[in-house]
Structure formats: structure tokens, C-alpha cells
């Protein structure tokens, strides 16, 4: 069990800097997910914690030890890889017990640890198979078992579910969460899938181009995104973003449609802004949630519908841009039909058009 601290950690490949002075403090027993599009430096950061990449600048601490120059084997970590990284020439049992064998533990101790891990992950009937004879999900479980067996200070997961099909992914997500509740160990988890990040994390770290954009609990990053990037990255479907300008104390879209300023935002007259609203907060009258304090109404023509059962996703046109909205208690909507939508301004956002930073105060 241990905390992990990153102090101004930098990674450079030759002249190319891929991680820019990152600071991050992870508490003991915390489940932290690094999320971001590919190439954002999240895997590199994880691999620097693991010791698989040299650290070009700054410090990484595990517990209270600076581990910059320690080889991975002395950091007492366990890692689950995207491609599982099972040793193909060893049976499942040997794979699970390998790290303990290297640590020169007694055979009885190894057997006990392997049996326990196999029990937890229901791998017992597969112990004598080779990795080549296992399905994707089974391999994934062996990879996790290999991590559990070590009782490491920190677990590292590098996109562990991205090679599984959708159904298996949901299932393994639950298993990982259960595992964390049971072991109460520190976990650093890397993924590009925001759903995984939202469902698993105690805290989410959103990265982009080697910088941290925002750190926060899943609800924080969802409800109070710091930047347009976070706003569009987290949540599905992505938040609608409409360019606008502040005029006469209102938000004016490019076609002249105007709303009140969403509460909690500080803007200047004439400022270029971006108006952000999630589909959940744009609903047709009669098919919406009970009205809140600040509501705007707007007419839009519906181009396309995606029925999802309990609700229908509507693709409509506003100020020359496509806007996604939701319809509760859905009824069939014809293409081209014009509906009146209610926008819940309490849940809407304004960002600076130039910097993309949130204007919330």
C-alpha cells in the first residue's frame, strides 16, 4: 500500500517532449484513471511510474521513496498490459507464480498464493493450460491474477480492456471494481474510453498533448468541465458546442438566437464565447424533465432520430450547426419536423472562445 506522487515529471524523446511537467498526487488506496485520446502521454506517464521508461525530468515517488533510477523490480508494482503479456511458454499456474518464484518464495507459499488468486478470478479449472489455449477474457483474468499474486504496493493497468468485446468489457469492468473494493490497494489505470474512466475511477485525470487538463471525481469533471476539451471528451453523446457572442447581457448565437447567460458564469459584453449544452439538457416540450428555474425555449427542425428505447436521440439544426437532443417518453418524429425545445440553462456552460477555458466562477 502506498501513495504515488509525480513532481513536474517530464518525458522527452530526443527533442520531442511528450509529457510536460506533470504534477499528480495519488492517495493510498485510491483508484485513479488517466484518460485522454491516443498520443496524449497517458501511457508514457504510466510507464514512467512502472520504470519501463526513463524519466527525463522531475521526480516520481512511490511511498516516500524517489524511484527515478530504480529498476522496475525494486518498485514493488504489478502491471496489467493491454496485450496481456502472458509468458506463452508457461502454463497459467507458472504465469501466476512467476514473480514469486523470482522472489525466491517457498513452493508452498507460491502454491497458496496462486490458488487464492485463481479462486478469486475463477481460473482454477484453467491452471494447467497454456495461454495459447485461452480465450481473450480468460487471458485478461490471468494477467490480473498475475498482478494480484504479488500483493504489490501499486497496481498499474495499461488499457487492459481494449482488446475485449463490448460485453466482456462491461463484465470485466465490474470485476476490476470489485477487486479494488476487496484489496483496497492503490490503482493507476490508463484508458482512452471515458465510460471506463467514469465508471471505475475515484478520481479522473484527463490528459491532452502531454498536459493535464483537469483532475477531479467523475461527477466533477462531468458537471464542471474546466475546458472545452474536457467538456467534449467526457460524456456521451459529446456536449453540443455552439459559437456565440455576449450582447446586451445575453448569449447570442450566430443566427441571432439569444439566451440568458447560464447562472454562475462571468462574461464581458462583446466577448466571443462558446455555449455548451449536453443532449440531456435539450429536450422537446412535453417530452422533458420538469422545468427548472432557468429555461430557454428554441425551435429546431429534426433531421435524424436514433431511438434507444427509453429515450430517443434527436439530431437537429440550430444556427447552422448540428445539435443533439434527447426526447423522453419518445414518440415517432418525422424527418424535417419542427419541435420546440427547452434548454436547461442551469446545466449549460460558457467557455472562452479563444482559450477554451471555462468562464464559470
Amino acid at each position, binding site marked *: 500500500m502506498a501513495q504515488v506522487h509525480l513532481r513536474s515529471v517530464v518525458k522527452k524523446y530526443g527533442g520531442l517532449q511528450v509529457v510536460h511537467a506533470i504534477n499528480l498526487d495519488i492517495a493510498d488506496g485510491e483508484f485513479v484513471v488517466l484518460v485522454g485520446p491516443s498520443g496524449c502521454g497517458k501511457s508514457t506517464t504510466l510507464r514512467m511510474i512502472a520504470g519501463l521508461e526513463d524519466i527525463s525530468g522531475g521526480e516520481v515517488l512511490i511511498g516516500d521513496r*524517489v524511484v*527515478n*533510477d*530504480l*529498476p522496475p523490480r*525494486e518498485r514493488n508494482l504489478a502491471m496489467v498490459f493491454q496485450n496481456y503479456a502472458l509468458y506463452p511458454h508457461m502454463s497459467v499456474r507458472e504465469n501466476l507464480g512467476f514473480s514469486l518464484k523470482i522472489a525466491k518464495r517457498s513452493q508452498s507459499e507460491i502454491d497458496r498464493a496462486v490458488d487464492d488468486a485463481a479462486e478469486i478470478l475463477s481460473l482454477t479449472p484453467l491452471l494447467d493450460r497454456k495461454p495459447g489455449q485461452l480465450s481473450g477474457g480468460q487471458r485478461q483474468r490471468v494477467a490480473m491474477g498475475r498482478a494480484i499474486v504479488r500483493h504489490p504496493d501499486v497496481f498499474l493497468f495499461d488499457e487492459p480492456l481494449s482488446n475485449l468485446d463490448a460485453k466482456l468489457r462491461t463484465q470485466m469492468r465490474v470485476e476490476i471494481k470489485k477487486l479494488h473494493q476487496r484489496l483496497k490497494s492503490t490503482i493507476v489505470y490508463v484508458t482512452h474510453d471515458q465510460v471506463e474512466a467514469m465508471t471505475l475511477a475515484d478520481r479522473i485525470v484527463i490528459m491532452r498533448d502531454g498536459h493535464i487538463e483537469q483532475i477531479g471525481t467523475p461527477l466533477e469533471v462531468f458537471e464542471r468541465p474546466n475546458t472545452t476539451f474536457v467538456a467534449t471528451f467526457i460524456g456521451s453523446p459529446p456536449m453540443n458546442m455552439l459559437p456565440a457572442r455576449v450582447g446586451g447581457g445575453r448569449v447570442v448565437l450566430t443566427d441571432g438566437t439569444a439566451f440568458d447567460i447560464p447562472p454562475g458564469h462571468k462574461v464581458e459584453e462583446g466577448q466571443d464565447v462558446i455555449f455548451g449544452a449536453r443532449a440531456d439538457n435539450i429536450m422537446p416540450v412535453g417530452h422533458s424533465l420538469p422545468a427548472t428555474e432557468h429555461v430557454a425555449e428554441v425551435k429546431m427542425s429534426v433531421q435524424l432520430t436514433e431511438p434507444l428505447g427509453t429515450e430517443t436521440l434527436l439530431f437537429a439544426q440550430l444556427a447552422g450547426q448540428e445539435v443533439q437532443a434527447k426526447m423522453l417518453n419518445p414518440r415517432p418524429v418525422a424527418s424535417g419536423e419542427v419541435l420546440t425545445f427547452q434548454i436547461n440553462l442551469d446545466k449549460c456552460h460558457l467557455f472562452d472562445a479563444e482559450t477554451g477555458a471555462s468562464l464559470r466562477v
Partner: protein
Amino acid sequence: MTTDRTHRNRKRALRIAHFIGLFIAMSIICIPGLWIVLNSFRPTVEIMAKPPVWIPNELNLDHYRAMFGGNGQGGVPVLTYFRNSMVISVTSTIIALLVGMGGGYAFARYRFKGKAALFVGLMATRAVPGVALSLPLFILFARIGIIDTHFGMILAYVAMNVPFTVWLIDGFFRQVPRELAEAAEIDGCTRWQAFWRVEFPVARAGIASAGIFAFLTSWNEYALASQLTRSVYSKTMPVGLLDFTSEFTLNWGGMCALAVLMIIPALILTFLVQKHLIAGLTFGGVKG
């Protein structure tokens, strides 16, 4: 912090050891060849000098001039040998490639009974040592009257190279997805067109390297050539090297010059093919 420092020191020590080891290994690999090249430019007196002359006083082209000057020094008809080697190696390589392409394609694309056994059988013919084969071949060729001819040598070298070209080309065709040819057939090609227009171009680089490998084998072969060639008419360069030796003396300088002449084409070809060769050997072998 102390552990940090010891780790850094150990890393540095390893780097130095690595450099020294690599330097020694590369020296052992390079020096014998460079020594030969150097001596091909030195006058015989200097090669034979006692005590040895380390820094050459004089470098000249005498040995090369003698070699190409027809029947000059030692009277070794190097140019004729060079031509024989070229004709025999090139022709046998082309034939071995054609035969190998047929065989390799059959192994890569068709399933049939006894395939594995046939494959091992083909390979086993390559395991027959040249000396052991040269005895009966000599008898046979002498009977048919193709001893000491280009034809006889070409025949022998084709046979020697076929197992290997089949193996390599099989490996390369395996890397070409079967769907590619199937798509071509659906697009209206006959089986033959699908092969020639699609599969062959994709595997071309690999086939070329199999060819270069076959060429080098023929170019460098000695055990068979030394028995199946008798005269200037068909002698190849490896056999010609022996012309520089007599019972008691050896013309070192002349031999070194001929050696350089032999190595240059091999050097160029190997350089061209190195990447494909590694890929071919490993894909053919490991992916089975």
C-alpha cells in the same frame, strides 16, 4: 539515494563493457578480410619479408595487372574463370528460382497427402554433403559425357539450390494472404493471372532474395566444382584459386587479388538482400 547511485554506476560499467565487447567482436570479424585486401595490393617481396613489414612502403596494382593480363604471372586465366562462374551461377540461379517458385507455391497454397514428408524429403537432399555426392555424380556425368561442361555444372547447382529456394519462397508466399488471390479471381482473373498479377508482385522482393542466396551458393561452391570441372573450359573461380598453389610454393599476392575479385559481387548482393534474407529465413521457419 545510495541505491540510486549504484544503479547508475552499474549502468555505466555495463555500457563500457558492451562497447569493448562489440569492438573486439567486430575486429575479429573484419581483420582477416581486410588483411586479404591489403595484401592484394602489396608486392610479393613485402608479403614474404622477415621481419614483417607492418606499414606498407608501397601499394600497387601489380597482382591485378598480372591477373587480368591474360596469361601473365602464374598463367592463371582469371577472366575465363570469372566468365565461367558468372554463366554457371546466373543460369542455375534463374532455373532454380523458376523451379523453386513452382514448388514453393505448391507447398504454400495446396494441401495434399504426404506434404510434410515430401517437404522433409526435399530438404534432406540438401543435407547430402558435396563430397559424398560428387563421387557418384562424377561417374554419372562422365558416362553421359557432360563432365567439364557448363551444362553439367548448371544441372548440379540447380539441384543443389532447389530445396533452399523452395523453402524460402514457400515462406514468402505464406506471408501473402490467400484472400488477395481470391479477390483477384473474383475480379475476373484466371488462377494463373491471379498468381502472376497479384501474388507474384507481392512476394517479389522475397523471391529476389532467394535468388541472390542461390547465386551466392553457386558462386562460392567448391566441393562439386573441383570434381566436375577439369579444364579452363568450365572451371569456376573457387577452383581457379588452386591454380595459385603448386607443390611447394603459394602465390599469396595473386591469390589475394583473385579473392577480392570473388568477394566484391558477393558483397554487393548480400548487402542488397540482407533485410529480406532474415525475414525469409525466420518467417519460413518459425511460422511453419
